[in-house]
């Protein structure tokens, strides 16, 4: 059972949260210009990484805010938490090559 540090409410138990999949997947600006492959890539294809993984969480039963978490999916250790819209801390990006 994870203990997730909500950037607004502090550490709360996992059952208050909902994980919203991989972080930093931006919706394309103009989907109509994309090929089917590119659209499928945006829709379905994911990093699904073993190791440090950048993911989104929402404090569903708390403040209802979304935020990002960098978590090691092999050990469940949380290595960083950062707000929506910001980039992962440098110390993390070196551990994950995005894409």
């Amino acid at each position: 059972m994870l203990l997730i540090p909500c950037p607004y409410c502090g550490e709360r138990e996992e059952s208050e949260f909902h994980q919203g999949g991989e972080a930093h997947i931006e919706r394309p600006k103009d989907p109509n210009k994309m090929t089917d492959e590119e659209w499928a890539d945006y829709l379905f294809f994911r990093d699904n990484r073993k190791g440090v993984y950048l993911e989104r969480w929402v404090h569903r039963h708390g403040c209802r805010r979304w935020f990002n978490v960098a978590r090691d999916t092999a050990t469940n250790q949380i290595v960083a938490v950062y707000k929506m819209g910001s980039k992962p801390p440098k110390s993390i990006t070196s551990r994950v090559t995005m894409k």
Partner: protein
Amino acid sequence: MANTYLRQTPLAHLHLDARAANEAADATTGVHIGERLLLGMINLRGQRSNPDFGPAVKKVVGAALPDVNKTSGKPEGVHVLGLGPDEWLIITPTGEEADIHANLEKVVGEFHTAVTLTGESMTVIRLAGAHARDTLAKGCPVDMHPRVFGPGQCAQTILARADMTMHQTADDAYDIIVRRSFAEYVWTWLEDAAREYGVRVITGLR
């Protein structure tokens, strides 16, 4: 015509007044529980980053905008709960919400805000007594130990299988704000959890 239509609280059908009258007081009762009737509530959204926003709200409400999980104002009067970085819950005594709502809309109109009446959606269950905290701890994963949580603090969290906003109003008292459709579930759950400590229904809470 209006007064022929009665307002009903979500727990009205439990006839808590009658229960309170019939049940004898007992010094050993560990938990007191009752419904605070029909408080007014306004959900307020807005950008804290605008330095004028807080003061503008305070003028109308009479209480400052607290941080997340903090409250301002007195639990008996108009008080404000910090729900999120840009979200507050203003709780008012019965009937006072409409004016505050109207005034807020006027004042905060110039900012990007949303002011929404929500009191009808909710009810407030007051839980008090020596074992109030133990009772809550059976279903709430938040650490409520006096070292880390105390009067004037609040938390949006869960109680068993319901969402709740919990506001500690005194050393041994909590206001539990839940959606009205969950009221009976939460009440039943609380009474069940408190059973081993002895439960007494209190009424007349405003």
